[in-house]
């Protein structure tokens, strides 16, 4: 699945997009996998309350299932307008 990062999440992880193969069942499980992988993910995902997640371009929560998902995105709370 494609995983996208925006704003300071992108900056901490160091790239805007990557291809991730996972057997994680939910967003939260994938986050745990990534955090265990490298310090930059740990830095980005340290405080999930400061993060938002979109599943296939719709806002979702961290318990959302990953089955069939093509695009996942992590970013801080939005500041549009």
């Amino acid at each position, binding site marked *: 699945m494609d995983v*996208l990062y*925006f704003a300071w999440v*992108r900056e901490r992880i160091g790239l805007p997009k990557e291809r991730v193969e996972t057997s994680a069942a939910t967003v939260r499980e994938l986050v745990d996998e990534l955090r265990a992988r490298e310090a930059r993910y740990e830095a980005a995902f340290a405080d999930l309350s400061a993060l938002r997640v*979109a599943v296939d*371009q719709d806002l979702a929560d961290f318990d959302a299932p990953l089955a069939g998902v093509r695009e996942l*995105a992590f970013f*801080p*709370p939005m*500041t*549009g307008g």
Partner: protein
Amino acid sequence: MRIVVQEAPFDFAAEAQGFSRGLSGMGAVVTFSGLVRDDDGRLAAMEIEHYPGMTEKAIRAIAEEAQARWSLGDLLVIHRHGLLAPGETIMMVATAARHRAEAFEAAEFLMDYLKSRAPFWKKELTADGAEWVAAKDEDEAALDRW
């Protein structure tokens, strides 16, 4: 309904005029425009990042919700991304309705949701460096009104 997401500047006055001219039977038009604000003279530029694809989808969903809640003659949303100078117009909304209360409410609804539910992120660039603008609790709380 017209929704535009673009990097290029837009002409607020021309957009507002075009919007009003296309109306029929409407008594009230409200516009909001958001400008790059420089509070202390230190801002060099504002950079607005967005999520191509999701941005248009999210704005369309917000706009359709506004149309479902109020009887609107038309509505317009234009939002820029990229690098903007202080004083530049970041975005605008326009709403038209028969009466003023509907037009005002729909415009405020659009703004409250665009602020916290459309995937844009603002970064302030100053001589001292760059800083992401933090979302405000009051912006999240503003959604409770609807």
